[in-house]
């Protein structure tokens, strides 16, 4: 195995990166586990507080033990019954064993039960919210990236009036914080002008489904959040691409290509390809961060995506839900970063060369 790895430096690079990412993943899981439990909030107490109103003491105790078992805070035998000590009290589990339980359950996709929306399971809540977030993020990121990069490249190459107009506008839109633009759009178009609805994902009373009426209603609510994110992505990409292209246009190899009499359109292609690589990296990372990227915007528009789920979870101290969402976001980011690392290592000849050199 080792000699085989030695013979394929690129593979070694990939395996090395994978190993590092697995390590990081464990750290991330640990962080996701430990941090919410640093506070005083105890899910069982919170649930009991809600339920206590009309239960007698025996039933209350049974309910409490049921909750404790559900959240893995006490030991249970294979049949699911609570294990008791000599005094008849339930045996609490240690933190390390809770952690192991958390890891194994999460790996199976079981992220626990929400406190606020008990007994709904976290994975179910996330499952309902995630498609909304993806529907908002995916098109804005992809379209924004394409349009922004194109505008940036054109501005860098053709200069003149186009550049002088584009640059300040792009600068403006890329420097505005996303949520600020969101708030302004909500206020101006949603409330004052009432062109678009200000809050929600779809009309009240409608049931989410693939009916034409629903899709039409949802699209109407979609416009403002979509635009608020799109504008910023376009501006940001345009500025970045423009800088990259200006740099590429000043390089020695572009000068030489011109001296050789190579077609202008071929030179444009060179510029594009070389400026693209870091932009592709940016795209992959943005897609990876897609799940958690629009939290604030969703919150402002009360858009029923992951952002809103996290917000309500935070407000209600629903830490299984918080944990579940943050874990999902982290995993996506890690996967995206890993793919980018591998892809760049494969695509960029400069980095490929350094694999061999490192031997």
């Amino acid at each position, binding site marked *: 195995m080792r000699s085989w790895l030695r013979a394929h430096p690129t593979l070694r690079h990939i395996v090395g990166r994978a190993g590092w990412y697995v390590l990081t993943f464990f750290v991330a899981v640990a962080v996701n586990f430990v941090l919410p439990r640093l506070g005083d909030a105890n899910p069982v107490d919170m649930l009991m507080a809600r339920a206590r109103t009309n239960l007698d003491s025996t039933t209350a105790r049974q309910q409490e033990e049921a909750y404790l078992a559900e959240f893995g805070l006490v030991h249970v035998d294979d049949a699911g019954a609570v294990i008791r000590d000599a005094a008849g009290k339930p045996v609490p589990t240690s933190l390390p064993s809770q952690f192991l339980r958390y890891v194994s359950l999460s790996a199976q996709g079981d992220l626990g039960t929400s406190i606020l929306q008990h007994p709904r399971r976290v994975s179910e809540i996330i499952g309902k919210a995630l498609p909304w977030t993806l529907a908002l993020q995916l098109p804005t990121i992809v379209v924004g990236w394409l349009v922004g990069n194109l505008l940036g490249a054109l501005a860098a190459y053709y200069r003149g009036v186009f550049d002088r107009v584009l640059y300040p506008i792009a600068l403006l839109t890329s420097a505005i914080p996303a949520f600020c633009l969101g708030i302004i759009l909500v206020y101006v178009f949603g409330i004052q002008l009432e062109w678009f609805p200000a809050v929600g994902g779809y009309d009240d009373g409608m049931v989410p489904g693939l009916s034409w009426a629903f899709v039409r209603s949802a699209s109407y609510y979609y416009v403002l959040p979509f635009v608020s994110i799109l504008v910023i992505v376009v501006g940001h990409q345009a500025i970045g691409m423009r800088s990259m292209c200006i740099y590429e246009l000043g*390089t*020695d*190899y572009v*000068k*030489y*290509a*011109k*001296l*050789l*009499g*190579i*077609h*202008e359109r*071929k030179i444009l292609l*060179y510029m594009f*390809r*070389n400026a693209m*690589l870091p932009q592709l990296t940016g795209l992959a990372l943005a897609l990876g961060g897609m799940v958690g990227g629009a939290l604030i915007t969703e919150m402002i528009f009360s858009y029923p995506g992951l952002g809103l789920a996290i917000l309500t979870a935070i407000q209600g101290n629903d830490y299984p839900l918080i944990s579940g969402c943050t874990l999902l976001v982290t995993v996506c980011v890690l996967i995206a970063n890993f793919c980018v690392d591998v892809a760049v290592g494969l695509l*960029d*000849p*400069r980095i490929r*060369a350094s694999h061999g050199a490192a031997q």
Partner: protein
Amino acid sequence: MTAAQVNVTAPILEVEKLRVHYLTRFGTRVQAVDDVSFQLREGEILGIAGESGCGKTTLVSGCMGLFIPPLYHSSGDVRILGQSIVGMSREQIRRDVLGRQIAMIPQGALNSLNPTRRIKDLATDMIVSHDDRAGKREIYERLRERFERIGLDAKRVLNAFPVELPAGTKQRVVIGISTLLNPKLVVADEPTSALDVSTQKSVIRLLFDLMDRGIISSMLFITHELPLLRHVSSSIAVMYAGEFVEYGSTEQVIFDGQQPYTRALMGSMLSAEPGQRGKKPVAIEGAPPDLKNVIVGCRFAERCPSVRPDCSQKQQQLRTVQLRQVRCQYA
């Protein structure tokens, strides 16, 4: 250029009273090349020597027809094989002149290869930009043959990325690509400055070889190095502040410079040549004049060791002194 327009008996390059200026960001006009004339015939190698900023690179850009803003053509003519190129459109220059009639081996050739393009793809781009009828296979064969001829392992080099090649090989590759279409004139701008001595020698040998084989016919050679100047050029032009101050054969200019600047310049370049040994390099005090201003009289007057009172008053013209051209009234 069509066959009918090409005049085979004319000199390959004819520069007549060329003046080139550029406009700075604030609109100031800087006359970088002022009234330069010379001819280059088949088999000749003209070495151009001078301080940084004297206009050498601007001059050769002008010779190639590269009047791209902020560089502008003020007046004068540049003719290649009898045909003037100053009036040509940019597309014409790209298609017919660059790479085809004249090729440049740029300064900093080592960074001139697109790092994300294989050598063969870059070379193919060049060929296809001038002649889009050739098929891919033909082109590859041509490339392989040419690269073998210049002493490179064609298969390995053509399929490589620039980052995988050592410096000496990259220099050869640049020369190889530049001369693919057998240009009549090659402009070499400091082609050996980033190389070690033995690689320098092999690069020069390569250039000579290409000339012997008729792949290239003449050269404009810019360099700071005296030994190179001596061994390579058949004639030398010394440039200062945008003008030629001396123009003659190699032996004359190096060993018997008549213009004070020429003598100072040759004296300031280190050399292990016989006849030069024992002479200590002497730096030239001061700095060249700012070309933003119109200069009256001799441009070297401020720094000239043999300056006389009326040097700064009269415009200096080129005169013929002892079979060469000198821009000094007291030579």
